């Protein structure tokens, strides 16, 4: 067994080569074969990959189809963005040492209480974990205890991110309204525009992805991981064995939300902006597509799916922007029908020379399950 099986080993080795080669090609080689924008672009993909791993942990292993994971990503991003805003200091357009430009513009007298502490990097780092973690805890505590499952749970996670989007769009919330937070200058004193800083951020994203994968693997390999799969496949049966299903769901949901928060925090300095659009329901649905496409319940597949789809999106939106959404939809439909184990299943199935039909039969057992079971509909059995 071991934490690093063949699949994980190959992926991590590839990731390592990438995180060394890309900065090298950008900084150290003559003629700069890797342009700077590519470094940030790939860094962004790695953040998406971490986000996909976070979703796979709850969806692939515990059957919680969250359609709101973009919210945890965005909250982590906002926490980091708030620090970057404070770090601008008096170098903003209005040269106010305490208030970010948008607050001066909106006639704020003083910094809102919830902005305090974000001038300190360590505090922002804690918030990157704590804010998504706390939201996931409160949300999950109510949802899982009242035994909301399946489609209903998916819908309320979607509603959660939608509500947050509307809230963050409001100027009165104090997060920069629809412009969000932007015009960052530096982080820990390093210029965010410099190639070296960007290379570091890229490397850190690679490291975070590797760490996220290993943490998720350790969780899913443990007995707890087996309980999660048991919950995914036969929730009620798991309860009769004495497991408090809601506690297990809550644990994995909170861990996943924190992981998504870290992904968001690394994403923001690389793209240079965070705005309420990150909360949009469509974003969260895209994460699900990454995971389904890469291979649900495989962790590595989820990361791969995110990178592939994000890459395809960059290429396609460059050539034919109108086509992208249709292409994404078509891709999703085709993958669910023909590749129920995702791209990873395709690659590994090839290697093992297994017949496609057998693969498909095995996949059906743990495939995408949006069915509503009758027992979930019997309201009277639901306890709070």
């Amino acid at each position, binding site marked *: 067994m071991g934490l690093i099986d063949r699949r994980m080993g190959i992926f991590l080795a590839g990731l390592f080569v990438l995180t060394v080669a890309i900065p090298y090609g950008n900084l150290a080689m003559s003629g700069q074969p890797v342009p700077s924008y590519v470094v940030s672009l790939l860094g962004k993909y790695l953040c998406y990959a971490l986000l996909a791993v976070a979703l796979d942990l709850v969806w692939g292993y515990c059957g919680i189809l969250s359609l709101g994971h973009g919210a945890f990503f965005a909250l982590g991003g906002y926490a980091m963005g708030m620090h970057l805003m404070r770090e601008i200091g008096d170098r903003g357009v209005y040269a106010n040492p305490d208030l970010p430009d948008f607050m001066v513009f909106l006639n704020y007298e003083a910094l809102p209480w919830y902005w305090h502490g974000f001038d300190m990097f360590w505090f922002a780092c804690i918030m990157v974990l704590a804010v998504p973690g706390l939201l996931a805890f409160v949300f999950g505590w109510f949802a899982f205890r009242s035994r909301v499952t399946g489609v209903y749970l998916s819908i309320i996670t979607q509603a959660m991110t939608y509500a947050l989007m509307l809230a963050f769009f409001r100027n009165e919330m104090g997060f920069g309204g629809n412009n969000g937070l932007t015009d960052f200058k530096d982080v820990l004193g390093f210029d965010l525009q410099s190639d070296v800083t960007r290379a570091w951020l890229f490397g850190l994203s690679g490291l975070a992805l590797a760490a996220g994968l290993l943490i998720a693997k350790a969780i899913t390999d443990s007995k707890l991981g087996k309980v999660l799969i048991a919950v995914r496949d036969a929730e009620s*049966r798991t309860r009769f064995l*004495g497991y408090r299903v809601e506690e297990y769901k809550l644990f994995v949901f909170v861990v996943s939300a924190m992981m998504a928060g870290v992904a968001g925090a690394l994403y923001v300095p690389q793209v240079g902006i965070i705005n309420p659009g990150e909360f949009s329901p469509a974003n969260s649905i895209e994460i699900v597509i990454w995971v389904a496409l890469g291979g649900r319940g495989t962790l590595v597949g989820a990361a791969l799916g995110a990178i592939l789809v994000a890459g395809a999106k960059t290429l396609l939106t460059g050539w034919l922007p109108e086509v992208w959404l249709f292409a994404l939809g078509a891709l999703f439909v085709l993958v669910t029908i023909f590749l129920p184990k995702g791209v990873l299943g395709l690659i590994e199935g090839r290697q093992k020379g297994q017949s496609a039909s057998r693969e498909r039969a095995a996949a059906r*057992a743990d495939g995408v399950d949006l069915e509503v079971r009758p027992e979930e509909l019997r309201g009277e059995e639901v306890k709070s």
Partner: protein
Amino acid sequence: MSIQLALDGVSRSFDGFKAINELSLTVEKGELRAVIGPNGAGKTTMMDIITGKTRPDTGSVMWNQTIDLTEQDEAGAARLGIGRKFQKPTVFETQSVEDNIALSLAGERSVWASLFHRRSPAEATRITEILELVRLEDQRSDQAGDLSHGQKQWLEIGMLLAQDPELLLVDEPAAGMTDAETMRTADLLRDIAGKHTVIVVEHDMEFVRALDCRVTVLHQGHVLAEGSLDHVSANPEVVEVYLGR
């Protein structure tokens, strides 16, 4: 002998239909009890009530004369020492036979305990013992979903034994088994009784006879008769609603 389980005046209706109606039933510690009755008599619903899945509208279900089970949820009842085998065999299909047993094995159920769990030699031995007992040692690494219906029944019995519960509720264990296997199940349950309390629901009269224990006949959510199999078989009402068909 002390009382393990006592249902007193339990009723439960679904959309006006009384699935359980003023049901009172006492089972002693270490007793083996068979529950029979026509389809829809409320046998499974009775188990749902004992295991915290369904809450009764009225009545009490006392555990060891001290704890009211109607206030427990499923995990709570399981942690008190109530294990259950379902009418429709329910195993964890995408996990190995061995892992199905490992998940059921008695022990701490908290999140932290599971996260840091290491299988002890004693647990490994116990898993092997159980797999041998239910004759699934050759299927140890197979996916549970690939087992036949009868094998799934055995696996679920194995899971039940792994839990080492004080009370075993066994709903139609013989369905899908061969005659020889049915008799083996009966032997197994007779062996377990004494150390554990066992309540078995079954339609197979050969099987019930082999259990050689006190029989409760349920009809329309109510106890119609109770006593030895011969005693209840002689009851004209029982013959009319159930045995005579």
